[in-house]
């Protein structure tokens, strides 16, 4: 059995080097290797979206990406959204609209919403609901989440 693989990637704008086993998912690498636990595991099979990250600007489930696959690529996680100037407009909108209850799905929803609003800040309710179909929330019934994303879109226009 050979040893772990060296991977170099850009995560949240910074160059990162790490060792991982090929069988470790990007989610495991983020959480267990790099200590970035903001990305959450809900199902580990691509059906809940809690582990959503941006991979070269596209949203993906990080449980369905191998850590070795991000060699030379760019990843953005929930930890990369707020800046020294403050929260990202989507984060602020989630707070103001009470769009989180337990909060476990929240990082995934916020990152997924960023993937949409960066391209389509004017997305309407139907478009938002369709875009977020891969993100499960069990607390809110989605109502306040959709309102928060609509609200954030207004601010990002």
């Amino acid at each position, binding site marked *: 059995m050979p040893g772990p693989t060296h991977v170099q990637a850009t995560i949240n704008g910074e160059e990162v080097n790490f060792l991982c086993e090929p069988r470790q998912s990007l989610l495991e690498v983020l959480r267990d290797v790099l200590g970035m636990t903001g990305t959450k595991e809900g199902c580990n099979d691509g059906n809940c979206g809690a582990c959503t990250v941006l991979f070269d600007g*596209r949203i993906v489930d990080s449980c369905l990406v*191998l850590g070795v696959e991000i060699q030379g690529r760019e990843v953005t996680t929930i930890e990369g959204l707020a800046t020294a100037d403050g929260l990202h407009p989507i984060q602020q909108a989630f707070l103001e609209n009470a769009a989180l209850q337990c909060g476990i799905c929240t990082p995934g929803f916020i990152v997924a919403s960023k993937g949409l609003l960066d391209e389509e800040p004017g997305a309407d309710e139907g478009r938002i609901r369709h875009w977020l179909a891969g993100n499960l929330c069990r607390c809110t019934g989605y109502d306040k989440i959709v309102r928060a994303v609509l609200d954030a879109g207004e601010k990002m226009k």
Partner: protein
Amino acid sequence: MDWIDFATPKTISEAVELLASKGDRARLIAGGTDLLVQLRGGRRSVDLVVDAKQIPELNEMSYSPQNGLVIGAAVPCYRIYADNAIAEAYPGLIDAASLIGGIQIQGRASLGGNLCNAAPSGDSIPPIIALGGVAHIAGSNGSRQVAAEDFCTGPGRNILQDGEMLVSINFPAPVAHSGASYLRFIPRNEMDIAVAGVGTSIVLDESGQNFVSARISLASVAPIPVFAKEAGDSLAGKPVSEATIQQASEKAIAAATPISDMRGTIRQRNHLVGVLTRRTLNIAVERARGG
């Protein structure tokens, strides 16, 4: 998950060599949205995972009204539906590419992977079959081409031999007055496995009132995706009418051999094949008349 090795070949020949060296203990990964779940759940076991995404031919996507469409085996769904020319020429394919999983999955999952995974419920397979897709295969003994309807051989099994890989799926250029559609029935509105799915592709005559030809393919109603040839053939030369469409839907039902399981019963699935055949034919006719 058990230990795996990971290789990132840059050429088809390199990939073929790697695959050949491990036989059935090696598997090509494109989006990984099926493979990783199967490896993690112990439903599939391999020693070597070979990345398809560094190989240019597998990432190629090209379309011309003359030569048709080539979709590299590793091209993710979102690239297909983001391409306006392709979306316009192959709406039936777009129907499927935009409903596999959610947006996250569509960022990774490929039609090639969907075909190789050979699930009876694979959403893109009926439209690939209906549109006359051909699988271009490379292997240590050279390359070959296989019609999509001959590609799947059983649940999770396909025609690829050890050391062979899918390079691309090629589609003929759409002819005038043609249209296609894919619909599946699921209890939720997305993120679900088809209880039944139907892909249809039709060509109308110039008047738009008669079928010239039709191909119909079914998902989730047999161990493999079904090419319901007789159902499609029954429309050739017939007028577009409720009666002919009804007749074709009955032939589609006759081609289905569903089982009862937790997702649906035999009766429900046969019924749905009829409903979806009628609905997709009507959509396809509308599309054929519209463009």
